[in-house]
């Protein structure tokens, strides 16, 4: 099976105008790829469905806005993939 990074990158390419080969492990989803909030929710919906999880976007955004977590922790591709892996593992128990 493809890695989480590859699956998420494929989803982003399918749900935005970003070309697949421009999506790299160090790409920041918003700052580098230019994903806006509407496209991002479409992407999150696709990730939720593909991985069978509920990506806690609201909690992540609140943490970033409150300064308790750096945006890179959630919105840089390699870290986003790691967070998704954690959510999948947590769900599997």
């Amino acid at each position, binding site marked *: 099976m493809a890695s989480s990074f590859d699956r998420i990158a494929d989803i982003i390419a399918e749900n935005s105008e970003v070309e697949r080969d421009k999506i790299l492990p160090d790409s920041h989803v918003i700052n580098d790829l230019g994903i806006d909030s*509407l496209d991002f929710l479409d992407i999150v919906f696709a990730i*939720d469905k593909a991985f069978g999880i509920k990506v806690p976007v609201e909690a992540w955004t609140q943490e970033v806005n409150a300064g308790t977590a750096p945006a890179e922790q959630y919105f840089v591709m390699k870290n986003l993939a790691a967070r998704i892996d954690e959510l999948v593992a947590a769900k599997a128990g």
Partner: protein
Amino acid sequence: MKLEYFQMIDRVASLEGEAIVVESTIPEASPVFEGHFPGYPLMPGVLLVETMAQASGWLLLKLMAFERMPFLMGVKEAKFRSFIGPGTPVTVHAQRLHDGSGYAVTKARIEAGGKRICDAELTLRIMDFPAPELAAAMKARGQELGLA
């Protein structure tokens, strides 16, 4: 329906699990029909989308106990299959497909006389009420509809 007030839902027929059925009647007369279209009044497709969004919105409000507000933010796969005109009673079905973090996705359709008029997949952003007046107004209307 009161088109000029964007009040698209007349009554709730049923709400079971994550699905709602609502009923409305397209008004016999409205300034909307003077322009859309002269001599051939039709319910505009954008107002059919609004009707499906409001059915979805009332469903989500009920599922969230009126604590947060859904706002329409995306429409996918919208298909308008038949014309519909003044005075027509319609049934609107909406179902939550996905309960996301800060958003929800619904599937909705409108039927008239057992015939499908339109359908779409809708994405709604879920937010805290941005104004207490809005929260109060939604609860008041929800009580009228038997939801709050």
